[in-house]
């Protein structure tokens, strides 16, 4: 994964600024910062060529805590600034840090368009299903029924599915990870470092203050194996504490099956194909949700395509 051996001596610490993060103790952002800086060190791209562009929100404070170039822009507008940076200097590796409100409420259009153009930008969407910085209003990903400061009687909107949107928009690298699994975050970020084109990584992130435990049912250590599905290109879709379950496609419908029951073997299972030009499977995977299905993590799609600019 190391692209540039010359600067490979940089460590994670080198990518941290001397500014103390001002997130709430226990906020998921800390863990993401950790993985990102680790991946920066892994990538071996010199510091001066990494640029982290953010919008406004708790998550968007992240650039201050890295030692790369950074731009803390306006609410929802990070992709536009990132675009100008990349078009001006294509040598730079440009990351976008955004929140669910930032990227999907006010910034939804820019998010969609940078992906449509397959611009060579990497967006990380810190999805805590809430507006953190403004102290707890509903966001476009807040689950129905959630009581927040702006929905005292519960959310009634249908939430946006970030991965579906990214696929429909045409991002060429689409993934989902979470703040409780640094190894997975780093593996995905490392692959993203190398990707040419629009990267979209949804990162489930726990907001301890305004929506604590939102993802525990799929991210907590003890639930993780049975409630989530790790997508790996070329591998059958297996999950479960004992890797005893899998996903099959029965007449166009995805279904959960027990391996070994009703004559099902590993060979009957759907095999993940992240490199397919056709997004149909990825689209269907993006619709899977716990409890009917395991919640998928990993890389949904990764294809090469001409890059904008």
């Amino acid at each position, binding site marked *: 994964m190391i692209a540039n051996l010359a600067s490979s001596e940089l460590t994670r610490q080198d990518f941290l600024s001397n500014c103390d993060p001002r997130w709430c103790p226990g906020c998921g952002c800390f863990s993401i910062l950790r993985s990102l800086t680790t991946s920066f060190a892994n990538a071996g791209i010199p510091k001066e060529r990494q640029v982290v562009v953010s919008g406004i929100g708790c998550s968007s404070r992240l650039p201050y805590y890295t030692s790369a170039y950074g731009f803390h822009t306006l609410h929802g507008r990070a992709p536009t600034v990132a*675009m100008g940076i990349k078009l001006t200097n294509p040598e730079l590796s440009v990351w976008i840090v955004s929140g669910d409100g930032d990227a999907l409420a006010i910034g939804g259009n820019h998010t969609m368009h940078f992906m449509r153009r397959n611009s060579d930008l990497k967006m990380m969407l810190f999805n805590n299903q809430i507006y953190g910085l403004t102290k707890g209003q509903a966001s476009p990903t807040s689950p129905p029924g959630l009581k927040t400061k702006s929905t005292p009687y519960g959310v009634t909107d249908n939430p946006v599915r970030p991965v579906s949107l990214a696929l429909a928009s045409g991002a060429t690298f689409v993934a989902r990870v979470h703040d409780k699994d640094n190894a997975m975050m780093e593996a995905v970020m490392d692959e993203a470092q190398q990707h040419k084109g629009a990267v979209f990584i949804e990162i489930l992130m726990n907001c301890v203050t305004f929506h604590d435990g939102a993802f525990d049912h799929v991210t907590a250590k003890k639930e993780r194996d049975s409630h989530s599905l790790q997508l790996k290109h070329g591998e059958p879709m297996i999950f479960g504490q004992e890797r005893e379950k899998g996903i099959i496609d029965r007449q166009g419908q995805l279904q959960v099956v027990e391996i070994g029951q009703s004559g099902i073997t590993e060979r009957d299972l759907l095999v993940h194909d992240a490199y397919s030009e056709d997004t149909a499977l990825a689209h269907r995977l993006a619709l899977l949700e716990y409890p009917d299905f395991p919640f998928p993590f990993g890389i949904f799609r990764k294809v090469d395509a001409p890059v904008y600019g």
Partner: protein
Amino acid sequence: MTETLQPINETKHQLLDELTIKFAGDSGDGIQLTGQRFAELSSQVGEVVRTMPDFPAEIRAPAGTIGGVSGFQIRTGSDNVHTHGDRLDVLVAMNPASLKSNLAKVKRNGIILVNQDTFSERNLALADYQTSPLVDESLQDYRVFALSITKLTRAALKGSGLSGKEMDRAKNFFALGLICWLFPKPKTAVYQWIDKKFATKTVFAQANRKAFDTGWNYGETAELFATPYEIKKATKLKVDHTSKNQFITGNAAAASALVCAARKAGLPLFLGGYPITPATEVMQELLKIKAPDVKVFQAEDEIAAIGSTVGAAFAGALAATSTSGPGLALMGEFINLAVIAELPLVIINVQRAGPSTGLPTKTEQSDLMQALWGRNGESPLPILAAKTPQDCFNMTYEAARLAIHYMTPVIVLSDLYLSASAEAWHEPEQQELAEIPVHFATQAEGFKPYQRNDDTLARPWAIPGTPGLEHITGGLEKQWDTGGVSYDGENHERMVHLRAQKIANIAKTLPLPPVYGNPNASVLLIGWGSTFGSLLEATEQMNQQGDAVAFIHLQHLNPFPKGLAESIRQYSKVVVAENNLGQLCQMLRAQFLIDAQLISKVQGSPFTVDEVILKLKLMMEKSS
């Protein structure tokens, strides 16, 4: 081409001081081409020329209707030509609708040439004529020449192998030929141009030459006019006879300035834009250029357009955007980010009539206050305004220079009138242009993103990719020298003053605007932007008529040049003329406590010279 442009046998010509002529017809009639060609010819023989097209409304109206009329107005003459003319000496009307919609502009006794073949009942009805103006008495105040241009052209092209429809397309060349005889222009230049333009379609080239000749000969032989008219040439202006001499609109001039400035500065050019009338051509001119140092990004909206521009500035480009009023309204939040992040940006705002969507195809000067104040918080930036099409070059270039020198966004105000009107011009050579020095920071040792140049108060430009200068910028208030985020109240106050001071300081580097007219007059007329030509001509006429008037025209609207207050205070009466409800007037009053009075016109069209004179005289009477 130059050697052929000798004036032809002049002996029997009458001399005219100047000529205002308009070609008009249906959108499909080739009016724009004909008009432009006549303008270029006039310029090449050494006349001063200003042009103004008249496009049909945005959405196409059916052929033959008033809505579908296309026009092209040319004013040509000597040094005192500063506008495209208020009234027409000559109208060439290729159909009834074009006659109807332009008649009011023709001078009493002016010449009207019509193509009578188009005055069918159907076309008359489409133009809302009850009876034909050629037979009733409605044109009795004019010198009307009704010619069978269609028939004459067809007759001439008989046997050319062209279809009837194709022949009809040549009829504008007949008109051009006739006019080029009446106001003599060198034939050979027309031939050469035709041959070049229709190089791949020689039948058309032949036909158009033929039609042109037929028109010319018709003038010579039909004896409609006693003799041709010779037009007075420029005396002070140097006329460029090289092929670099071209007609340029304000929008094209602005685009050209961006390229020149970027190249002079040694920077890549980046323009992030979104189409909007009347600014779109700035972007489109640049899109035509296929060069690695010119990047144009058509964004999904104005916010993305300026966002990308801010990003490009951060990354080290000469970064620009072009828009019009409603777009500028959307850009305020981002312009503000550039103000606090102190990044160089050129924002070209081509004004149109507001508020809201307003009259998108009409001109106005009503975005000055928006440019000055349309952002939250104290958000100072320089504002320049172009006064002529080619001044769009100068002001845009100057904006780029100031932006980089002071690390600030700069707004250039143009307007619909300048965007479309054109004058002869040639792009300056690199060495003629003012220097735009760029000093990217490179020294990591002791680097502080907000440590300032003592003189300009500009902060260093430290672009991503430079080792050791990694830093974070953004919209939160900055500590005054490290540029880190600071919530400290006193630091904030310091920064608010510092940003204001940085812009205010520019004043001392600005030249005082020249005083036109009579500098010893007691009345001072002040203008800005595209009204320059009318105001100047009004001033000159008034002084000629014995009414002493001084006139200054501001290009720098924020800050004003140092010493402006003193210059203005010398006059006992100050009158500001603008196409709005008094925005500059308010600024002058607030800053200088001068009882400036307003001459306002908000009709979507520029002042005519007569209007200015009339209103100014009224004011002078009132006060005396």
